[in-house]
């Protein structure tokens, strides 16, 4: 099993930390993982993306051009990465701020309105965990117990009191993700 994922959005949305939690969850499930950020002269409000690979085998290139799953969180990223998803792959996006919706017919598209849900939960910071929950519903490649272990490993101990809230967010993401016909 190899899952090649791109997560892309605005800096500050928690793109890189979602990738890190995903990768750490993979480690907890005894998988091979790689986490490769776009690094550069970037800033808050600019775009950020990270390539996460989770595999049962040794990972070859951490830098790739085609992905099994795209998790897309703003318009620029949708424009940039929609064509990078492999035919038959999965695109998950948050419709918040999207003016041109994805158009591919040869992939499966899901919508997870995580920004809106995070607003309802009164907790904008769990936005990325709602998205991650949606991803895990569609691609249950990591067991929830290992995601929680991954969360614990990724978060500094002083934030461990926030883990139950993050679990709730993951659960909400699983509930609200919907396929787009």
């Amino acid at each position, binding site marked *: 099993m190899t899952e090649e994922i791109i997560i892309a959005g605005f800096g500050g949305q928690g793109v890189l930390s979602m990738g890190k939690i995903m990768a*750490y969850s993979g480690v907890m499930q005894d998988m091979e993982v*790689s986490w490769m950020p776009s690094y550069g002269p970037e800033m808050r409000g600019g775009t950020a993306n990270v390539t996460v690979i989770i595999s049962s085998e040794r990972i070859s290139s951490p830098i790739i051009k085609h992905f099994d799953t795209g998790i897309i969180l703003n318009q620029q990223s949708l424009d940039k990465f929609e064509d990078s998803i492999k035919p038959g792959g999965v695109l998950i996006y948050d419709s918040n701020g999207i003016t041109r919706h994805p158009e591919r017919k040869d992939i499966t598209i899901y919508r997870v309105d995580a920004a809106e849900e995070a607003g309802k939960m009164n907790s904008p910071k769990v936005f990325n965990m709602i998205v991650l929950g949606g991803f895990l519903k569609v691609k249950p490649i990591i067991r929830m117990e290992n995601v929680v272990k991954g969360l614990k490993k990724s978060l500094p101990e002083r934030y461990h009191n926030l883990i139950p809230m993050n679990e709730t967010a993951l659960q909400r993401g699983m509930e609200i993700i919907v396929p787009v016909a």
Partner: protein
Amino acid sequence: MEKELRLMKGNEAVAEAAIRTGADGYFGYPITPQSEILEYLMEADPYHTTGMVVLQAESEVAAINMVYGGAACGKKVMTTSSSPGISLKQEGITYIAGAELPCLIVNVVRGGPGLGTIQPAQSDYFQATKGGGHGDYHLIVLAPASVQEMADFVELGFDLAFKYRNPVMMLSDGAIGQMMEKVWLSPQKERSKTVPAWATTGKPATRDRIIITSLDLDPNGQERFNQKLVAKYNEIREKEVRYEEFQCEDAEYILVAYGTSARVCMKSIQLARAQGIKVGLLRPITLFPFPTKRLNELAGKVKMMVSVEMSAGQMVEDVMLSVNGKVPVYHFGRMGGIVTEPEEVVDFLKSKI
């Protein structure tokens, strides 16, 4: 003690491994894409646990000369930087080589020349393997291709440096420095309580002065010293070559690549083999000493070799020397901080078949 499993950036792995292997001192100056090494060490503050000194110097030049001083005292000392900073360190590096002192230098390479870019590149191969500074000398050059190797080569680097009294360079790049992977960390080792006999530690009445210098005004003496270095480098060439072969058994074509490019090539091989092209990878782990003999042997069994590097073609010259005309050798790779894509390597290979 068991090894500890962590998810870390390559840069962080270097820093943590340095503490755990019992390094005595780190002297550095920040530069992207390796600043996390200094940042991690500053936050870890190992002086209060292992006694390891971590110091941000006023410049790269100061940092390498602190390494020179620490090494002359027989201490396990290191510095890290990225391409432009490594250029600044070259004077110190040649003096350390000329004084036959051990140390570890990590270069997390970015695109050049000049200030270039902050993205990954492999364009410092010549500088690392062919000298860099002036005079007839070699560094032992290790090329990690994973975060695990970033950690492992800290200990290996120090071992080789002390074994041969020679500076060791770990030649990494921005991609391996910035990416996170699983890494198994060795348990904490104690710092050495003793120093080698050659270390300058103050002269007791019981022995002669120890002088560490790279200066000999008598050309006969200098030539004898040069011959001693040549003999040392030949011993290193004989004993320390390290490489990995990947799907070479039935290969008709061989890609030669180190570091990030080697990882890219592993993916290219998967793609090419799906199209029926029998291709393998030879990944040099030591760039000096270079796996010359093995490449020459493989050249007798294959039709072509391609050196894949993120440069205008540097290692390709060593591949050509190794192959010595037996088969055609080409270079392929992107530059300027752009990482070569696996598909591009396959397309290039097909264009040459």
